[in-house]
């Protein structure tokens, strides 16, 4: 947007014009007094012979005037600072008290932010309802496909199954994406990695109970990321689930903190992924092993989610022998 002149220069211009006006009236007044009382120039002269005190007083007045103008302008700078901290995700609302002229503006801004949050929430809920509403009919359709296959119409069954599978992948992918796109914009978020990782480890141990996997975590308390909790759960959940799917006996998660990022390393002792395929398994719908279960969207969702938050996921060979996924997210 184009700025229509500087507020500060206008205030200064006003102050200078006022001063000039005051000078004019003061000159008139002094002149009249001197005309009516011929002895008065002596008195004026007597006052202004004290150069030091008068100069000091004048300098002091100028200084205090300067400070007053600057202070008068400071709420504007403060407002800018508060808004940028919202933008960077440190705060959700404009906090603090402002002068009576600025406060209504701040209140309106906060109301606007609250409205924006509500709109995002509603849109997210609608996207979720749509996707979940479709899943049960899809499940019914999938069972019908099996019935068709059993009753001697394998082509029809396979065709339905294939299309249902595609629809499901599309929904899972866009659902995760819609949620991330919405929440990535929501400011002021902070999520402890240890809490999320423990919940996921509990869940995975239960889901893979027959595999007797060791899921070990080494996450320091205070290691947190600037990511919505549900999104961190989705990212770590997908990566850890993938590790559990392939692991022979153990999966591990460890975190380290660098300047502005938190690095999470997820290792497994499975067969790993061929070096030539490392990059492509992060693509949508690509599976390293077409015979393994899963949509092939898991790691692609992780990549897209991490990008929304300004993070990355990189795959490499793990010291445990299998795959290492390195997920880097902005720390909080």
């Amino acid at each position, binding site marked *: 947007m184009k700025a229509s002149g500087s507020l500060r220069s206008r205030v200064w211009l006003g102050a200078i014009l006022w001063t000039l006006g005051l000078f004019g009236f003061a000159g008139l007044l002094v002149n009249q007094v001197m005309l009516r009382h011929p002895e008065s120039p002596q008195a004026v002269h007597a006052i202004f012979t004290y150069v030091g005190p008068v100069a000091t007083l004048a300098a002091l007045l100028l200084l205090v005037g300067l400070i007053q103008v600057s202070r008068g302008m400071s709420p504007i700078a403060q407002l800018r600072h508060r808004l940028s901290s919202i933008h960077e995700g440190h705060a959700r609302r404009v906090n603090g008290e402002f002068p009576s002229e600025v406060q209504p503006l701040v209140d309106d801004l906060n109301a606007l932010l609250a409205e924006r949050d509500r709109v995002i929430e509603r849109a997210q809920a609608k996207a979720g309802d749509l996707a979940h509403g479709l899943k049960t009919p899809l499940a019914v359709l999938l069972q019908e496909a*099996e019935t068709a296959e059993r009753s001697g119409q394998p082509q029809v069954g396979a065709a339905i199954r294939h299309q249902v599978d595609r629809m499901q992948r599309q929904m899972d992918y866009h659902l995760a994406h819609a949620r991330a796109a919405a929440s990535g914009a929501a400011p002021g978020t902070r999520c402890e990695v240890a809490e999320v990782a423990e919940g996921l480890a509990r869940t995975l141990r239960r889901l893979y109970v027959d595999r007797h996997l060791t899921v070990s975590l080494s996450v320091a308390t205070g290691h947190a990321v600037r990511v919505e909790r549900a999104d961190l759960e989705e990212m770590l959940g997908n990566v850890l689930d993938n590790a559990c799917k392939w692991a022979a006996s153990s999966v591990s998660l460890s975190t380290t903190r660098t300047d502005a990022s938190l690095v999470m390393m997820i290792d497994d002792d499975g067969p790993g992924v061929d070096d030539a395929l490392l990059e492509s398994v992060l693509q949508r719908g690509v599976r390293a092993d077409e015979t393994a279960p899963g949509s092939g969207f898991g790691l692609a969702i992780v990549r897209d989610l991490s990008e929304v938050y300004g993070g990355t996921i990189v795959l490499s060979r793990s010291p445990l022998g299998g795959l290492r996924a390195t997920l880097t997210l902005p720390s909080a």
Partner: protein
Amino acid sequence: MRVLVVEDEAALAQQLDDALTAAGYAVDRAGDGLRADFLMQTESYDALVLDLGLPKIDGLTLLSRWRQAGHTTPVLILTARGSWHEKVQGIDGGADDYMAKPFQVEEVLARIRALIRRAGGLASREIRAGAIVLDPRDARVTLGGIPVKLTSHEFKVLSYLMHQRDRVVSQMELTEHIYAQDFDRESNTVEVFVARLRRKLGASAIETVRGLGYRMGASS
């Protein structure tokens, strides 16, 4: 083995019912949370298939209520909500397994078998009692390696007794676990099934504990 299917979508409930019945389970159905709660309080089940988005009382509330009341019946959550956030909530709420819709019915059957097997403290897929081997995957029974033909009720009685190996099972308990709720039960029919099983598997296969019930031992 008796399974309760809690699912409000009638078509899906019917499909699950059909598949489970075909696999040799006695199946009850509940279309809302209140009915599910009632059945859980009054009947005994070996496993539950639980949808989360239910009318009247939602699935997670039901589950935590049952777990607090001390019900240990294994529960498989089968839901449209498939995010990890929801999976963690489900497992922390007391579920034993979690599947997202849409699903393959074979997968559901495999998971139910695994839940029932684990609940009985059994490690391997096949269950053995002496020369009798029961494979829940395809509802097959062999005696000394030779397949034995059983009717669906005979299979249900044998399967329940073998899952409860070395424990005395009363006639009442056996009746509860082999019939669906709306089935017309007569307690003496259990005796008939046991008699037929003894004829097919040998008189010593099932032991009668006088006044208490029946027992199958690991080496009987």
